[in-house]
């Protein structure tokens, strides 16, 4: 079963990679008008996804469009394989698949991929973000397989607690959503730059991207959803478990320090977003900074610092 999981993992990365290539194809060949208009329509019209269908029907599918459709199919295939990888890993270990860094990244990325697929199916207009979403997934899963791979094994006694399920699952889900949230955040900044006349490298990517306002709102909604979940996982379930296990609810372990930092930065994002006098681009940069602190917590803290959350065991 463990072997099967590893093979599925390889296939997952390949499927995401293929989806990424197809998204890139759509990006290269796609017509700006097509995607852009669909997105704008969705923003303006009060109706739901129907407007996109109308827009799509009126325009004959182009080469880029076909490429995009294939990409979505490959993306969903990758998600199915990803789910298979995670489930077989859990079955092989006879427990929830988040007992070490490899499994943690696997599960976090799965949540990210699932949220992305959900957004994609509900709002097809965001398809142009697929290139960046799949890129993130490929990089994360690649890093998990190369840097953090750990053979299947049961849990150490410290992890043998029901709080393990609450604490780790909520953090995985919220990190997964923050992970997806950074994609529209980055695209908003690029698109906004493009709209305000910047034509340098990263901004050229914004040429075919949908409406900046929609991207910004999507960013906010993902973060506003993930933040309470992260609060619960990191600042309630975590301390409850820490109290039972280590005798103190908070002890400034490096992992706790960085969770605190991420929480503060995301709190600052929500405050900045709610303040009319702060520009939306500034607020969005804070969200991206939050993502960087999350990455620091995932990779930096596990690999460089020594602490009680030493589940990384990557070696």
């Amino acid at each position: 079963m463990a072997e099967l999981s590893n093979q599925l993992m390889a296939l997952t990365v390949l499927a995401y990679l293929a989806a990424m290539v197809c998204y890139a194809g759509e990006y290269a060949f796609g017509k700006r008008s097509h995607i852009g208009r669909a997105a704008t329509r969705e923003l303006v019209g009060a109706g739901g996804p129907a407007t996109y269908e109308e827009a799509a029907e009126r325009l004959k599918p182009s080469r880029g469009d076909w490429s995009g459709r294939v990409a979505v199919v490959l993306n969903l295939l990758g998600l199915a394989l990803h789910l298979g990888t995670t489930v077989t890993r859990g079955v092989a270990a006879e427990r929830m698949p988040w007992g070490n860094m490899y499994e943690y990244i696997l599960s976090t990325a799965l949540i990210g991929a699932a949220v992305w697929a959900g957004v994609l199916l509900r709002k097809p207009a965001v398809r142009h973000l697929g290139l960046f979403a799949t890129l993130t997934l490929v990089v994360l899963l690649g890093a998990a397989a190369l840097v953090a791979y750990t053979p299947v094994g049961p849990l150490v006694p410290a992890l043998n607690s029901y709080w393990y399920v609450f604490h780790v699952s909520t953090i995985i889900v919220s990190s997964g959503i923050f992970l997806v949230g950074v994609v529209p955040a980055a695209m908003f900044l690029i698109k906004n730059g493009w709209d305000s006349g910047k034509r340098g490298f990263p901004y050229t990517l914004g040429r075919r991207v949908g409406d900046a306002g929609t991207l910004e709102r999507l960013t906010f909604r993902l973060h506003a959803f993930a933040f309470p979940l992260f609060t619960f996982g990191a600042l309630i379930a975590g301390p409850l478990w820490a109290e039972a296990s280590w005798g103190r609810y908070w002890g400034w372990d490096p992992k706790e320090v960085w969770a605190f930092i991420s929480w503060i930065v995301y709190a600052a994002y929500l405050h900045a977003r709610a303040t009319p006098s702060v520009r939306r681009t500034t607020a969005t940069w804070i969200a991206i900074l939050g993502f960087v602190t999350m990455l620091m917590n995932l990779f930096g803290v596990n690999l460089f610092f020594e602490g009680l959350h030493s589940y990384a065991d990557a070696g």
Partner: protein
Amino acid sequence: MTVVEDRPATAETPPPRRGNPLWALLRNSWRQLTSMRTALILLFLLAVAAVPGSIFPQRSVNRENVAEYFTANPELAPVLDRFFAFDVYASPWFAAIYLLLFTSLIGCVLPRLRDHIRALTTVPPDAPKRLERLPHHVGGERRPEDPAAAVAEIAKLLRRRRFRTRLRETPEGWTVSAEKGFLKETGNLLFHVAMLAVLVGVGFGQWYGWHGNRLLVEGTDQGFCNIVTQHDESVLGPRVDAGDLPDFCLRLTEFDATFQTTGVPKSFRATVDVSEDGGKRYRPETFTVNDPLRLDGANVYLLGQGYAPVLRYTDRFGAQQTKPVPFLPTDGMLTSEGVVQFPDVNIDPATGKRDPALQMGFEGVFLPTGGTDGSAVSQFPAENNPVLYLAAYRGDLGLDTGRPGSVYALDRDRIADGDLKKVSGERPYVLRPGEKWTLDDGTTLEFVGTRRFATISIRHDPTQGVMLAGAVLGLAGLMLSLSVHRRRVWFRVLPADPEAAGGSVVEAGGLPRTDYSGFGEEFAALTRHIKEGKS
């Protein structure tokens, strides 16, 4: 952290133009401090200030690591220490940031609380003259009832949807003003007040909490009572007196540890006898890593474990001393280091005088599972092939000087000075359980066997419950403030035809008062339902 969204206009008299300059300065500083910009900057400062705590070892987390850092960087460490790099979270500059942040928070929450109470007690304002100017608008819907009946029906439907509703009669007809989503601000305030409660809770926890650590060896002869002198290390809050600690005694009767074939631990369980009446009656209890022993006024946590070899020394006069000596694990396979010191041996029974030059010390490693190659590294954490590698020293152990020294290492200075001489061979002596080692002077050391030991932490934090309640309430407030939206709707109901009786025309307008992209859909559904008379 004030989010200024059209507060009810306050009709305060403008401040006098030439007031006391000091007062003006204070007032301006206060405004500056409580502005959102400052709050954001303080939040960032707090995040940045927390970073060094993960880079440098912290005294509050691990004292040994700090000591190691000092040895490794003798030049840099004292300089860093002066800036509290090893006590980041107790440092004045960290405290300055969060105290400023919380002052800013109070300065923001209080006026918002006042405004919110005012908003809650104010009726929704009357409909604007031109509803079509609002972001959402539906006009000219005809209804069969006359205006008074129609407006009553609309108000009923709005109230059922938990809108705060107010009817007004105007010369032309009727208006309905309705508003909902006050829970957003309530939640927001709840969240911030809960944050304040958590900070206060942390402070009280520091003042009134205490904890102590203790290494407890298996056996009824190795009991421990909860007094400061019996802790290996204890930290009492400033408001805690040593006499305040609850009185209980523990004896570790059994320690179970199981391991996977790879040596990774599978389970730990400590069985203890507990007495809460000063050692008169004992009752058995068990606790494990995630399931502490909860006693009245203190909790006992299992932190670690290891082995204590039991050694018997027979001196040149035939007197025997036996003691279990905990050896501290240095790796996951429980390769353990330790020293065995016998300061009160080789006392001539004729004179009763102790010769410090004849004190005995042994230093070495214990391996629960020794390898076949003779290397001093354990192969497995359980006792499959226990073996002890020891070197013997004779001379003044230096225990009488009163200088604090480690009980896990011999005094290096005395070995260097020659006060403490190595009396065994070049290679350490190998002892297995039951074996006896005869030294050069005919005295013997017997490796009797091993006992387990557990490292436990005894803790009390009186504000933990408050903290949890604060965190849960804060989360509830946070979710309310992020998911609820404040919005207003107005309906204007006019007679359909001023001449004829019966029938009315309804016009509706909606205004989201916070950023709320779904309001259009809600407004459309609301007006549709009102038109159809659905609740």
